[in-house]
């Protein structure tokens, strides 16, 4: 407030107000952003995590022929969802060993939900009998729509948070004037200044990624956040359909003819797609009004190897299997949107690029985390009485503990629940999620009841223990212990187990550093020469 209307030199003024903007925009939704960043980071491996969470599904040693699988599942869907006006399946690829399909339920069955969904075994075509779990998709969905609330609310919260993030990034860059001079600067053991250097390092090294991921995150749901142009431009559903065709390979069911006619060979249709895009690069098969004379089938290209989510698909006449149209290009703006969307999801990645995504995204998580901690470190020095901080300080400090240390405990708790909950529990998948939130609530209670530093250390050790013991729990409760998966070359299981230990090491290191840390308080140190008010003046003093 002090800075609002004081006359001051222009350059300094802008940097100061941008610094304030950065601080408060970053803090206000920082906890939400941290949770979004961390769950989003983990979601880059959601398919692998889903495999790990369904240990009953065998390790896929070689990819099945997608054309054969498509036919098998199409036949099965004919019996599972008879008379459905539309079904759609995602074919197995290098990262998925099951076929996820959903369908609209036939009309004229009142009291039923409009959609059904299931995972199918590509080898048998039967519904998978693995334990009921949402798998890695829980983190994926939580990342942009949270839980226990209507998805639209969650998506709006995520959108507001992403917008705050965007403003925080831009204002942070303006504040940090010596971005290249300070590039490799780290001043060890200097309290607030070390935190600032760490925050700068993780932010600046990953800056292209952080900016990209924030902007593209907004783009993934832009039709929700900015519907005004669409509403002004399109008055009829037919016009709106024009737009949808630019965005998605889903073909919408038209009017059925009412005449029954069997679906032609789906296998043959997928074969044509394979010739065009490669044997393992068919993504999705969608059919409208299968079993009716007006049936249509769309076979879409997979996501590997092209940085775009723009629809590319072959459209077939369902009853004859005749190729009706090849959809391969969209308009410039739609293609831009497709590229940005793909950049966010990163599904085109080979495994090295996926790891790069994961690591830089983890740096983004650290960016938010160090920023949150810095708010506390900066203000602790100015507290009149460090033993009894004001209520705002107290709340931020506790929320930091719950968000940063507590979330690790809760996320690992979710994986423990996956192994420990009884197989026949009703609504088991939901209970895994309830466990996640119950554990998170417990860390909140713990953080409120314990002194701050003890709470940090204890929760970090709890996360360490849970992560370190998870591979052992896996060995005890499944047929696929680490030594077994290493011998088999099952890198999804071995990788997950080993990653648990790496992350346990990371949490242990953080716990040890925190336990050793002695915060520098005003009473224990000489009065500083330069006023420690903002990062901008701080850097000025350093120059």
């Amino acid at each position, binding site marked *: 407030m002090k800075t609002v209307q004081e006359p001051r030199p222009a350059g300094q003024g802008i940097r100061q107000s941008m610094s304030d903007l950065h601080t408060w925009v970053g803090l206000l939704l920082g906890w939400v952003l941290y949770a979004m960043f961390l769950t989003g980071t983990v979601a880059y491996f959601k398919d692998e995590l889903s495999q790990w969470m369904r240990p009953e599904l065998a390790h896929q040693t070689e990819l099945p022929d997608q054309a054969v699988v498509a036919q098998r599942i199409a036949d099965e869907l004919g019996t599972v969802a008879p008379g459905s006006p539309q079904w759609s399946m995602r074919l197995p690829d290098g990262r998925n060993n099951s076929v996820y399909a959903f369908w609209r339920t036939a009309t004229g069955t009142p009291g039923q939900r409009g959609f059904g969904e299931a995972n199918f075994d590509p080898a048998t075509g039967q519904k998978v009998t693995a334990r009921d779990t949402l798998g890695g998709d829980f983190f994926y969905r939580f990342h942009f729509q949270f839980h226990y609330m209507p998805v639209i609310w969650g998506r709006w919260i995520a959108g507001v948070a992403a917008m705050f993030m965007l403003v925080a990034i831009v204002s942070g860059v303006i504040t940090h004037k010596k971005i290249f*001079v300070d*590039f*490799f600067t*780290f001043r060890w053991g200097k309290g607030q200044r070390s935190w600032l250097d760490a925050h700068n390092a993780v932010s600046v*090294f*990953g800056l*292209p990624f952080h900016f990209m991921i924030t902007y593209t995150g907004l783009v993934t749901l832009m039709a929700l956040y900015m519907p005004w142009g669409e509403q002004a431009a399109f008055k009829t559903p037919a016009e709106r359909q024009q737009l949808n065709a630019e965005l998605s390979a889903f073909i919408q069911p038209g009017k059925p003819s009412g005449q029954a006619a069997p679906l032609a060979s789906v296998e043959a249709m997928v074969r044509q797609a394979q010739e065009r895009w490669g044997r393992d690069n068919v993504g999705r098969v969608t059919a409208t009004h299968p079993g009716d004379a007006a049936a249509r089938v769309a076979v879409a290209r997979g996501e590997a190897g092209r*940085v775009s989510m723009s629809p590319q698909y072959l459209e077939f006449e369902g009853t004859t299997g005749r190729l009706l149209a090849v959809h391969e290009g969209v308009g410039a703006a739609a293609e831009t949107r497709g590229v940005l969307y793909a950049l966010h999801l990163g599904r085109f990645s080979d495994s090295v690029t996926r790891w*790069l995504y994961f*690591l830089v995204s983890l740096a983004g998580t650290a960016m938010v985390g160090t920023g949150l901690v810095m708010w506390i470190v900066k203000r602790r020095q100015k507290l009149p009485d460090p033993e009894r901080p004001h209520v705002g300080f107290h709340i931020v400090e506790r929320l930091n503990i719950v968000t940063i240390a507590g979330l690790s405990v809760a996320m690992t708790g979710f994986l423990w629940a996956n192994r420990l909950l009884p197989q026949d529990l009703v609504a088991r998948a939901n209970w895994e999620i309830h466990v996640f939130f119950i554990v998170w609530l417990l860390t909140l209670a713990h953080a409120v009841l314990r002194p701050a530093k003890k709470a940090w250390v204890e929760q970090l050790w709890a996360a360490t223990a849970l992560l370190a013991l998870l591979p052992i729990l896996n060995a005890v409760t499944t047929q696929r212990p680490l030594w077994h998966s290493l011998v088999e070359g099952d890198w999804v299981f071995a990788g997950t187990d080993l990653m648990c230990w790496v992350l346990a090491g990371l949490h242990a290191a953080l716990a040890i550093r925190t336990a050793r840390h002695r915060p520098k308080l005003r009473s224990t140190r000489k009065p500083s020469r330069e006023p420690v008010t903002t990062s901008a003046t701080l850097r000025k003093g350093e120059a």
Partner: protein
Amino acid sequence: MSHPLSFMLCLAGFTALAFAMDRQQHDLIGRSLPASVTRALRIAGACALLLALGVLVAWQGWGLGLVMFSGHTSLTAGIVHVTLIGSARVYARASKH
């Protein structure tokens, strides 16, 4: 082989760029390097990074190439930074005894 190659190029590039910075020269060597050496290091570093970009773009095209380049640069900059911190710590400890 393009991933390890561009990774090494980025690592070399950032190492050269780090040694071209005054603060790092003082931390690691204890003095400033001559201006000509600093300039040579800066050019060599920039060239190594550009070469890494070239390798990735030639391999995967601009879209995927730029994405991979961004990942490699972020990771290697982080590695160089952590190494610098580590060596400065070792140096500080050694000079204390």
